[in-house]
């Protein structure tokens, strides 16, 4: 064992509340698989967890290069976990490039597990290392456990007669085995998974199982003195019930299926491959027995147009994409708004503009969602805050779309789409149904008026095929009742108002405070996937004695009616976002409040510590607080009566 064990700093805590582990390797090393399986075993052990897969846009980037590094981070613990963790406690580096890219994130005193077999001259060159960092003392402030995982894997799978190249494919399983031992996780679920995955190739399954067991045994029997000890982490205290892990993409898919069932409609999903949204198309394509039709269209435009066509014919039309694809769909969204047909548009946001950062997360499509159309084209927008939350939000999107006859945009992001967390499986019997209704008789005496609105401002939904209700709709401005072409000035004014009033009148739940008091010095207002880091940062700040609250907004448009009043109960408003301050602008515009931006556009989620430091700046004289004084907002801006509009 070529360790450079060094106990200079803390090392791993004896009984940690939570541990952050990052598996990093080459794109072809199977790190996402390793992370996924470690996640499963952690969930089965009853720990709360959050994950953060971080992989390159290239499918198989050249081996050993810095840009080909793929990583998977998991934060798990015996208390509630909301984020994938700031700095890893443990970094598994399968090659020099993985070490180089991820080292900066590692906690001082953290543990590095490295495969010396991959620290060859060639790989060191590719990672631009002049000397082997495992040997030159540059890792002195960490604990290093370095040994030849490659060799040990080859040895472990020798009985199966695999060539070196094939044998090395099991390296990730060997490493996973060691990780399972380190955190006292059961191996059986992984055995089962491997057997199922390689059902028709039992020798491959057996080789992988052998590698896994060997890694586990290595931890158990080798004298891993120094840095590595087995840690036992008690299960988290969670609400009783049935649990599973779920990613955001899965949750959106299941939520859409549930939403369609609650609306009592078949679902039509039009999609086009795009990262990171494709997973929703893949999930739904396997759920045909739930009355789901999936259609892989020729482009993003056709995907949404086909979905609108299906809604027109009486199904629940759904489409999904990411920013660049949403841009292409924009004209069709306008038609959906104009013809007032139900439609759910899922935007799994990624770094932009243009192609941007396909596999990295960002929240920079908020303006696009709320404002990004020609004409006055109001559309409801709602945002999921976590992978499991996406389930409820997808149902809510279906409800609004069908009840109000409108397109709805559901915002998630690359982080939510790919990350996994434990999810208490809900009981469908507890869901409130919202059956869609179709008009089958004239709605105005003997006349049929396709645009006569109900008390919610919604027009009737009429399926082609309904006798006696033939009518024409389209994107041209139409008469407020008959729907016939009508460009007259008064009519356009009234129709513009009617579309605006309908969306503004959508009933959304009152805004609650996620953490802290309903009034105070500082409100940290977030939306979407910043929920976890904001929540933890606010929790820690409250513990330090700060008067700070966390408000997390799901309904971006229209906003909860009480939000304006709620915000006015705080001296300061801080809006952390993974963009340049888009929600901040909307809040300022809607409520004339002095919302301050805290922005980040690095393609990486916020860290708890950086938010905590920003919060601290608002508080002075509180113990352990390094922040400075922030001037109170004496100059009150004019108040807006009536709240959210």
């Amino acid at each position, binding site marked *: 064992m070529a360790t450079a064990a060094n106990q200079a700093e803390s090392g791993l805590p004896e009984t940690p509340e939570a541990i952050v582990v990052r598996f990093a390797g080459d794109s072809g090393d199977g790190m996402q698989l390793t992370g996924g399986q470690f996640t499963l075993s952690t969930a089965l052990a009853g720990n709360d967890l959050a994950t953060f897969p971080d992989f390159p846009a290239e499918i198989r980037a050249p081996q050993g290069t810095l840009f080909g590094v793929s990583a998977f981070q998991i934060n798990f613990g015996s208390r509630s976990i909301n984020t994938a963790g700031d700095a890893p406690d443990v970094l598994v580096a399968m090659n020099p490039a993985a070490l180089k890219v991820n080292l900066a994130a590692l906690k001082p005193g953290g543990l590095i597990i490295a495969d010396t077999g991959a620290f060859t001259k060639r790989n060191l060159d590719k990672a631009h290392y002049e000397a082997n960092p495992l040997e030159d003392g540059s890792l002195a402030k960490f604990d290093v456990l370095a040994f030849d995982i490659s060799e040990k894997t080859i040895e472990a799978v020798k009985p199966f007669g695999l060539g070196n190249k094939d044998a090395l494919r099991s390296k990730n399983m060997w490493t996973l085995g060691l990780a399972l031992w380190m955190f006292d996780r059961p191996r059986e679920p992984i055995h089962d998974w491997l057997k199922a995955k390689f059902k028709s190739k039992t020798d491959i399954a057996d080789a992988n199982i052998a590698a896994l067991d060997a890694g586990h045994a290595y931890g158990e029997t080798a004298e891993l003195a120094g840095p590595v000890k087995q840690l036992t982490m008690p299960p988290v205290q969670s609400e*009783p019930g049935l649990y599973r892990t779920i990613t955001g993409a899965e949750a959106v898919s299941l939520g859409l299926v549930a939403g369609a069932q609650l609306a009592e409609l078949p679902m039509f999903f039009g999609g086009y491959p795009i990262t990171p949204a494709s997973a929703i198309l893949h999930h739904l394509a396997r759920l045909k027995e*739930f009355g789901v039709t999936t259609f892989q269209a020729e482009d993003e435009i056709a995907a949404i147009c086909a979905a609108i066509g299906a809604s027109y014919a009486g199904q629940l039309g759904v489409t999904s994409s990411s920013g660049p694809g949403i841009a292409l769909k924009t004209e069709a969204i306008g038609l959906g708004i104009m013809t007032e047909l139900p439609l759910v548009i899922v935007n799994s946001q990624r770094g932009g503009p243009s192609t941007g950062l396909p596999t990295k997360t960002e929240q920079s499509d908020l303006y696009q969602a709320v404002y990004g159309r020609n004409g006055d084209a109001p559309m409801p927008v709602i945002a999921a805050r976590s992978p499991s939350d996406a389930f409820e939000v997808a149902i809510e999107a279906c409800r609004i779309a069908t009840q109000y006859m409108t397109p709805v945009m559901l915002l998630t992001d690359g982080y939510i789409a790919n990350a996994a967390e434990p999810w208490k499986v809900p009981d469908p019997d507890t869901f409130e149904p919202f059956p869609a209704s179709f008009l089958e008789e004239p709605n105005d005496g003997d006349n049929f008026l396709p645009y006569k609105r109900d008390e919610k401002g919604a027009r009737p939904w009429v399926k082609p095929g309904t006798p006696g209700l033939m009518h024409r709709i389209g994107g041209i401005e139409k008469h407020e009742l008959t729907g*016939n*072409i009508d460009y007259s000035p008064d009519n356009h004014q009234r129709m513009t108002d009617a579309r605006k009033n309908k969306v503004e009148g959508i009933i959304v739940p009152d805004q609650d405070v996620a953490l802290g008091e309903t009034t105070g010095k500082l409100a940290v207002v977030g939306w979407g996937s910043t929920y976890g880091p904001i929540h933890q940062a606010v929790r820690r700040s409250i513990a330090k004695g700060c008067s700070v609250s966390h408000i997390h907004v799901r309904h971006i448009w229209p906003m909860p009616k009480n939000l304006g009043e709620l915000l006015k109960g705080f001296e300061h408003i801080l809006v952390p976002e993974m963009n340049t301050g888009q929600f901040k602008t909307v809040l300022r515009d809607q409520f004339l409040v002095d919302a301050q931006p805290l922005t980040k556009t690095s393609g990486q989620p916020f860290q708890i510590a950086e938010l905590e430091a920003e919060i601290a700046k608002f508080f002075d004289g509180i113990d352990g607080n390094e922040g400075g004084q922030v001037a109170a907002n004496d100059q009150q801006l004019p108040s807006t009566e009536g709240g959210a509009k």
Partner: protein
Amino acid sequence: MNEMTKIETTLKDWETDQEVRWCPGCGDYAILKAVQRTLPQIGADPKNTVFISGIGCSSRFPYYVESYGFHTIHGRAPAFATGAKLANPELDVWLVTGDGDGLSIGGNHLMHVLRRNVNMQIMLFNNEIYGLTKGQASPTSREGTKSPSTPIGSYDHPARPAAFALGSGARFIGRGFDVSKNLPDVLKAAHAHKGAAFIEIFQNCIVYNKDVFNDFAAPKGAEDRQLWLEDGKPMLFAKDTKGIALNREKLCLEVVDLTDGDWESAGVIVHDVTNRSVAHMLIEMPFGEFPMALGVLYDDPRPTFEDAVIQERKMASEGKEANLAKLLGKGQTWTVSGTAQDPV
């Protein structure tokens, strides 16, 4: 078309109360009448009939037919129609598009609806010009077309709608022109074809491209310039004094003169609507040297997209229960009871 119950209607039943807003004398009027004349003849049911269009003069069409209608956005009608058809395959869908809508901005969608073979009738009104935007050259405009956007004449090579359709995998290709008395017959044949039926309809834009088709469509001398194709019949024109034969040396078509109407010895081809190679040659026949090929050029059905989708859904659902509770709790789960946790 679908196997539908035939409904008795008259032309009047298919007229809406909407004022038609095309220019007086526009070829679109004649096409509208031809369609309204055809619908009763095929026993179409207004409640199941849907006209779907994009943007342009032709795309106003749905407003004038008393059925269901959807005037969508520029070029995308095939995608809307595909979604509607997959949601309800019983609908009898007519797609209305033009040379700009269908071949410029919407060329991609037109290609894919044809290759997928979604069961519908696709009428492309070809007037070789952008009408509604006031007369710019279109993708089918002939070289040298002077227009506001091409003041000294266009220089791009025109697209050929029927050739595009065939290349995209269309299994039915018909051709007609606005004022032709035969247009309803072409429409009927298109409707009888199960699958995507493409009909190129030459249409006279009397304001921006007046009489551009007169070389073959003008009544005077029409018999010499129009070849109306009929399945199983020899390809004859000019009052049966001329025919189309295959030049076996050059492997191309040629015009042959008949003596005493003896087409067989002149080698005139008998039209077989299922012959794709001949269809290709008919579509590509240069007008002038040859007459304009009209009628049903190609008709060879194959399974439709929506049938395949329905079949796939059926197979994928077989023996599976649509149980939401089970779906939500799928995969590896664990239960929490009090504080102890057990993997399931």
